């Protein structure tokens, strides 16, 4: 059909390595795990620095049951990052906001399972944010390589 082709470099940053400055250990782990198969290393001496300007979790009751107890939980994660050139410390793109949001059913009579599921969904949100961060990083890397 019209114009469809196999994906090229859209999801592949054209950097040999990047450094992550700031952010939680889980974000670093997820980014490293997703960058490795793309051939991009994550370490502290890269000329390109992903600076985490803000990283924020929000957890709130989205719905309650007939007794007013938590029945639906909303997890909301927001990351604000910027690509910085290590030597000149000059920003290579404007600050970017990435937001991810998920709901899960919460059962007061099985709180251990609900809290484990919450943890699983937190990792899902990190996976989702990192996937989109890599797309933006790939785009930024193509532009940096051009000029």
């Amino acid at each position, binding site marked *: 059909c019209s114009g469809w082709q196999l994906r090229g470099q859209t999801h592949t940053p054209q950097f040999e*390595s990047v*450094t992550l*400055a700031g952010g939680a250990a889980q974000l670093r782990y997820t980014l490293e795990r997703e960058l*490795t*198969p*793309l*051939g991009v*290393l994550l*370490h*502290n*001496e*890269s000329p390109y620095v992903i600076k985490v300007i803000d990283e924020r979790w929000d957890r709130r009751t989205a719905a309650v049951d007939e007794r007013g107890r938590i029945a639906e939980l909303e997890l909301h994660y927001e990351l604000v990052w910027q690509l910085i050139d290590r030597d000149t410390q000059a920003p290579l793109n404007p600050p970017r906001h990435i937001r991810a949001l998920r709901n899960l059913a919460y059962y007061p009579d099985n709180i251990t399972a609900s809290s484990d599921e919450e943890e699983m969904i937190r990792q899902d949100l990190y996976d989702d944010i990192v996937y989109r961060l890599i797309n933006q990083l790939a785009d930024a890397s193509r532009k940096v390589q051009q000029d």
Partner: protein
Amino acid sequence: CGQKGPLYFAEPAPPPQPQDQPPAPETAPATDNDDDSDQDPH
């Protein structure tokens, strides 16, 4: 009257978080899509 505000690091920000040294190039992990490996195809 007082004024509350965000906490911040007094001295300059701590050195970047201690992390293992970057793997030297020759020991870089073989990525899955290393299809230009130089093994002899036969």
